[in-house]
């Protein structure tokens, strides 16, 4: 099934990375079953949600500086309507996990995520939040925030430059536009990436 309704201004659909995931996502949605009338309304709501994503001010370390740069005049994510950063999780829609999450911070992050109002999204910004980044060998760092909360988009980079953050935001907007608004169940797409398995296996062998 082709991806519909998720065009983002100025970037053609096929130039986006990871369209395969979205295709699988639609597949999952279809399995869950949506009827047409709701779907129209759902599209409108998704349009609203994807264009008005208010981030929670949540910065732990270096990536937070680049997040601030994204908010500042040069990159200006206000153009996307994302500039209303809320300090209270009740009013925020997305957490930019910008920075390292350590074991002491993990429950706090979890609680903040739990306290957010539905629908809510998570962007793992930078290496630390995605995989532990430079601190993979550390005893106190959580290796990827998806151990703590479900993540929607990963933005690689250490830290990612503001443009890369904007790109990640557009990726999230694409995903939101696909969402079935009326089901609160989180759809999980179990994607199998062969290369990742090979890499992990090789790492294990080398470690042994």
């Amino acid at each position, binding site marked *: 099934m082709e991806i519909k309704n998720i065009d983002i201004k100025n970037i053609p659909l096929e130039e986006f990375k990871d369209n395969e995931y979205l295709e699988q996502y639609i597949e999952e949605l279809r399995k869950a079953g949506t009827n047409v009338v709701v779907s129209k309304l759902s599209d409108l709501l998704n349009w609203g949600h994807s264009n008005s994503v208010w981030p929670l001010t949540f910065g732990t370390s270096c990536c937070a500086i680049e997040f601030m740069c994204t908010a500042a005049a040069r990159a200006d994510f206000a153009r996307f309507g994302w500039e209303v950063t809320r300090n209270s999780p009740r009013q925020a829609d997305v957490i930019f996990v910008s920075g390292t999450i350590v074991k002491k911070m993990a429950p706090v992050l979890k609680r903040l995520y739990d306290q957010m109002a539905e629908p809510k999204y998570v962007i793992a910004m930078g290496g630390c939040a995605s995989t532990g980044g430079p*601190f993979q060998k*550390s005893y106190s*760092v959580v290796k990827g925030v998806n151990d703590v909360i479900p993540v929607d988009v990963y933005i690689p980079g250490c830290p990612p430059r503001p443009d890369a953050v904007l790109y990640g935001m557009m990726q999230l907007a694409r995903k939101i536009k696909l969402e079935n608004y009326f089901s609160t169940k989180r759809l999980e797409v179990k994607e199998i990436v062969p290369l990742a398995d090979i890499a992990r296996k090789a790492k294990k062998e080398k470690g042994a």
Partner: protein
Amino acid sequence: MIENLKQRVLTLCPSAKMMGEYEESKMLTIEVPNENWHELAVSLRNEKDLQFDYLQDIIGVDDEGRLGIICRLFSTTYAQTPLVVHVWTDGRECPELLSVSDVWNSANLYEREVYDYFGIRFVNHPDMRRLFLRPDWVGYPLRKDYDMESNPLVLKNEPVADFERSERLELDSNGRIKESSFQLFDDKEYVVSFGPQHPSTHGVLQLRVSLKGETVQRIDPNFGYIHRGIEKMCEEYTYPQILHLTERLDYLSAAINRHGMCLLCEKALQMEVPERAVYIRTIFDELTRIASHLLGWASMCNDMGAITAFIYGMRDREKIMDIFEETTGGRLFTSYSVIGGVSQDIHPNFQKRVKDFLPYMRKMLREYHTLFTNNPIARQRMTSAGHLNKATAIAYGVTGPSGRASGWHNDVRKIEPYAAYSKVNFNEVTDTVGGSFERYYVRLDEILESLAIIEQLVDNIPEGDYKAKTKAIIKLPEGEFFERVENARGDFGIYVNSHGDKSPYRIKFRSPSMALVSALDPIVKGEKIADLIMIGGSLDYVIPCIDR
């Protein structure tokens, strides 16, 4: 002079053992038995002719099975030889040392840190609890026998009570140690938590504030929400690999920290660095300092509610980011200095870009002053709160612009000139009042000084190599090495204990930000909440640097 000091110390404490001195770095190392340590500390601090009033750092070590601490002392009154004191514990099971937190206020947090890392408990310390790690953490991570797998990720709620209680060890008159536990805040106190997720704590710092109305009674900083264990990781990394971790300590002075680490390695290897590299590094350091001060200014404005000023600061910071990116390929983390020089030559556009930036920045600084400094609201807020006098600043080890605003001449660039700082004319910006406004103003003035330094250097970058040849595998000779550089927040110290391997045996970074936060408590007592945030902004600390 070093002889004098040696004699003086020996008369004060006959049981002290001289450990040889670094003639070159002009430093005296002694070993003191635990029983005499506190007594000696008092005399070192108070004797008229010694006055070692600045405790730079306390470094915990686990050296070949022995646990102990290394204290590094400076005197701000006399150009004294720095004194390095080793104190060892008796065993590994229940190691205890005498606390010197009553002598130097800065020791308070340092000793807690040592306790957290090595499990050494300090007798007479007012508040002996873990500094960085969760209260239920198992083991002491920087001990050599620490099991890395012993602490899995826990997501359940930590009981509030865990953060509420603390321990105290006291020596009673019979010389026996008495343990007692106490509650940090009274049940009736109204304690509000600022942080970990808070827009104005500059990172994930938790400040628990006891309030009466809007007035701050007492604060208790709670660190460790970004403790990544960098020091332990460094013990497995080679020296060139460590560099990328030093950048991530204080990410706003990334280039300076990295420079410091390179300097330490070069000094240890007695390596000659090409003049060109030295100049380039200095320019990059100063650009980093400007970028950091700009961000400091911007976020302080943001803390006071002037969001537009924040955006202006960030806007002008982008100019520096462009200069960085063009030459080094990185914005925040330049990965530019390497051991022996810099990793690649400057971009042909570099000088032009820097020279364009200088007048621009000067013009913008004038705008900042009109927009914010002279704004009566901002000025009244800044002048009326947050005074830190010189004595307190030294006692807490508040270095950098914040310490200089209190009148303490502590600029490492002046005291121990490194890189090209001895070749340039610049003023050490100081003030005497030590209020929030002075800290704010010193920072803006330092931008001007940095611009002047860059102006003197940028046209005179000598031709030649940008990197010295180094050995394939860099191994530091055996011994202890200290280095300090002036980063944007103050005295950034590095200690390396090398056993001659390609990775350090123990590495310790002295975070200037930690001293800034520890000094927060005496400053904010009796101020309003709004001022607490503003004072935090004026101190301009970076939490990942504290937590490491």
